[in-house]
């Protein structure tokens, strides 16, 4: 197995060979099965009986790549239940922290995980031999995203200065200004990234997806908004469970999310781009135009370009926030627990991350529900693989497997938060 491939994971070890299995019979795809492990169930149980103040830090441990997303969804859910609404500089700082996570997560996926597929390398280690400057650029971009997270979060992986109501401590303006030069470099590098990936060759493939993302009236949604889709969905996040369900499927330990009216759906950069393009910054829009990514974009392989466009936006947005920043004092709003249910849904790098908590009068968690973005994309990934593989059955198995892994990576599936996997296995009968 190569370094960038999806790994056979922990539960796979217990259950035998895991991952994606594509069964082919008589030149037809007979079956596509995803066999994965989804840990949030454990975290949901672990959270019961704990105080609301612990939820952001505990759930941040679910994913090492997108801890901010977990913290943000958890904070918003608690604030929703306790009826507090941090505004102004606190809200802006949260947005800034999220920009850091988008930059680091997108840089990691574009440069270290997905680009080698497009350029024909087994992994980034092989790619680095021929494209050392690109790899260095990706690493520096990621590092700048991490630097933002370190400054606002205390430490980059699992930020610790976020709390329900705001932050334990807000950075001084000077500390943020110290990042401006790096962010300007990052913005240029992100524009170069868009040009670089737009020149890749993309498989001809598209499907009529239902894209789902948050939409906010005034900004490219990160922390707040209504859930909308290109097929008419438009609901407040508290109605999530009336429209989305988690299905148990026999071949997988994971629950697959489905939209009750239309079944499979697609979350993440491509969904946000298609639904909220009008709210991107002028530079991000210009990059998108040059890259020639049409809207609606229904080719999931273009996701790598859209990630790069979002990276341009995240750098732009971070610079905008820093330019007008004045430290909030105090850096949090007081929170008084009360009996209630709270909902949080924010745009993790990979798509919407839904949290719901029920609290007692002391702010102890009675129940928790967490739906990570990768779980929501699983059904679309299965459908993609089935359709994608059907048109490529003439390829030898190793080539087909390679291309299918590339197709799975379009979704940047998070191996630590929804899955712990995997390789695509092709079986012919």
């Amino acid at each position, binding site marked *: 197995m190569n370094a960038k491939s999806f790994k056979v994971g922990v539960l796979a070890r217990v259950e035998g060979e895991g991952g994606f299995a594509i069964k082919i019979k008589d030149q037809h795809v007979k079956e596509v099965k995803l066999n994965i492990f989804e*840990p949030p169930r454990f975290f949901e149980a672990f959270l019961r009986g704990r105080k609301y103040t612990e939820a952001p830090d505990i759930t941040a441990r679910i994913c090492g790549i997108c801890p901010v997303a977990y913290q943000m969804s958890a904070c918003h859910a608690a604030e929703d239940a306790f009826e507090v609404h941090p505004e102004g500089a606190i809200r802006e700082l949260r947005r800034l922290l999220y920009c850091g996570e988008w930059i680091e997560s997108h840089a990691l996926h574009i440069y270290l995980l997905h680009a080698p597929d497009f350029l024909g390398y087994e992994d980034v280690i092989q790619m680095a031999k021929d494209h050392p400057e690109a790899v260095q650029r990706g690493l520096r971009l990621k590092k700048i995203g991490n630097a933002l997270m370190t400054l606002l979060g205390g430490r980059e992986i699992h930020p610790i200065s976020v709390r329900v109501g705001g932050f334990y401590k807000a950075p001084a303006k000077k500390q943020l200004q110290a990042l401006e030069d790096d962010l300007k470099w990052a913005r240029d590098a992100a524009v170069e990234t868009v040009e670089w990936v737009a020149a890749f060759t993309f498989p001809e493939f598209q499907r009529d997806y239902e894209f789902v993302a948050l939409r906010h009236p005034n900004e490219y949604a990160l922390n707040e908004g209504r859930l909308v889709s290109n097929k008419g969905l438009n609901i407040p996040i508290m109605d999530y469970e009336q429209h989305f369900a988690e299905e148990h499927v026999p071949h997988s330990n994971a629950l697959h999310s489905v939209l009750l009216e239309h079944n499979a759906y697609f979350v993440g950069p491509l969904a946000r781009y298609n639904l909220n393009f009008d709210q991107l910054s002028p530079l991000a829009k210009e990059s998108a135009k040059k890259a020639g990514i049409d809207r609606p974009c229904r080719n999931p392989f273009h996701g790598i370009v859209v990630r790069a466009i979002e990276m341009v936006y995240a750098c732009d947005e971070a610079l905008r926030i820093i330019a007008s920043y004045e430290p909030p004092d105090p850096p949090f709003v007081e929170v008084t627990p009360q009996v209630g249910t709270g909902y949080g849904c924010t745009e993790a790098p990979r798509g919407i991350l839904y949290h719901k908590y029920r609290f007692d009068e002391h702010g102890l968690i009675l129940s928790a529900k967490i739906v990570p973005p990768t779980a929501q994309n699983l059904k679309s990934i299965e459908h993609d693989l089935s359709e994608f593989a059907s048109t490529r059955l003439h390829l030898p198995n190793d080539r087909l497997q390679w291309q299918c892994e590339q197709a799975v990576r379009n979704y940047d599936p998070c191996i630590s938060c929804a899955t712990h996997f995997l390789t695509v296995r092709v079986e012919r009968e």
Partner: protein
Amino acid sequence: MSAARHRAMFVGVGNPFRSDDAVGIAVLHFIRSGIPSDVKVLEETGDGTELLEVCRTADHVILVDAVQSGAPPGTIHRIDASVEKLPSWFSRSSTHAFGVAEAIELARTMQELPASVVIYGIEGLDFSAGTELSPEVAQVLPKVAAQVLREILATPLSESAHAK
């Protein structure tokens, strides 16, 4: 040199909510008080790009992580990564798509490996969600910790440390 260099770095890798995956962190906590002050101690989740940064700021790196190679649980693997490539099973053990093994090999490709990199891989049994080490792994913890501490104490003073 822009970043501060250290005589040595000791890195414990793991996720405390993934049972035996946390053994690197457990070793770190076990020996922390015995580690000299000029050795930097880092607790990492296994994000490879963080480890690349570590490689850039230390002359000697000692790292402990949980692995699944198929050996009996509790087996201690010691790999001198400065002279040998990490085995393929090492990358299979990570919760990150770009983990310890990828970072070490990328650093090697980019000629950024420190003078010495010693990796301890502790064979885990249970990697499912949970906060306890399995008994087989917990049992070898004192032995691993003692061996790792000896290795840390034996790292030579770096040039930058001499210069002080």
